């Protein structure tokens, strides 16, 4: 067991634990905060995977924007539920079963895969993943088109969100 393995296990356990709290905590504010924790755990995992850029973006975008958005939304709609009554619907047990089955199925599928125990390759010397990513994102040979499409999607979502949430009275 290497240090990396230990760090992974600790972080993964914390992440899954907080994720569990996200889906189970009665208080939505708490759930949103647990989400922040989860996201943070995921960011650490990115870092472990040498994907520094992703880790940073995870923190900036997810925790800094999305999670805060959730908290706003929760606060805007809190009036009724007030965290009272069951937070899970009546067929939660079926959901749980299905989730377990899904998990089992996924694991079961992975189990027989030959590359399952693939070990991590070395990073070639002089390879800068961030600059490579930047090149890939804007290079006409690579992903400039999806990148632009994604930006349009964001714009459309922005306009759409404003339109949908706009209070017409």
């Amino acid at each position, binding site marked *: 067991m290497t240090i990396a393995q230990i760090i992974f296990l600790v972080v*993964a356990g914390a992440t899954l634990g907080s994720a569990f709290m996200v889906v189970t905590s009665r208080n939505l504010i708490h759930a949103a905060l647990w989400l922040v924790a989860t996201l943070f755990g995921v960011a650490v995992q990115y870092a472990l995977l040498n*994907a520094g850029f992703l880790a940073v973006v995870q923190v900036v975008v997810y925790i800094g924007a999305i999670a805060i958005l959730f908290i706003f*939304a929760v606060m805007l709609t809190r009036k009724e539920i007030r965290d009272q009554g069951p937070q899970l619907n009546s067929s939660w047990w079926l959901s749980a079963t299905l989730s377990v089955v899904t998990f089992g199925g996924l694991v079961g599928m992975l189990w027989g895969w030959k590359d399952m125990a693939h070990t991590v390759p070395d990073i070639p010397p002089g*390879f800068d993943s961030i600059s490579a990513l930047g090149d890939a994102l804007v290079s006409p040979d*690579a*992903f400039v088109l999806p990148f632009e499409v994604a930006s349009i999607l*964001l714009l459309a*979502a922005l306009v*759409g969100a404003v339109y949908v949430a706009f209070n017409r009275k």
Partner: protein
Amino acid sequence: MVPLSWYLIFAAGLFSLGLFGVLARRNAVAILLGVELMLNAVNINLAAFWRYGTITNMAGQVFAIIVFAVAAAEVAVGLALVISVYRRHNTVVADEIDMLKW
């Protein structure tokens, strides 16, 4: 070092938890929370496959970034919808939002 399988199992777990949240939570906002979990699980897979595959091929990371963008858009529109529904029907309980039924 950490084998690929660990990441994959971790992502599957996160995904399943998110799935449970989506399926079982009553609050619409909480459902969206579940969705975020699932998206994150996917992103972990993408990053892991990038790291364990041909490292010079940046498709994994690029995909992950696009997923970020999609997630941001999804949350923005999703929450806008929830707020809009909440304004109209004064509820965010998913079971009660059934205007699309027959």
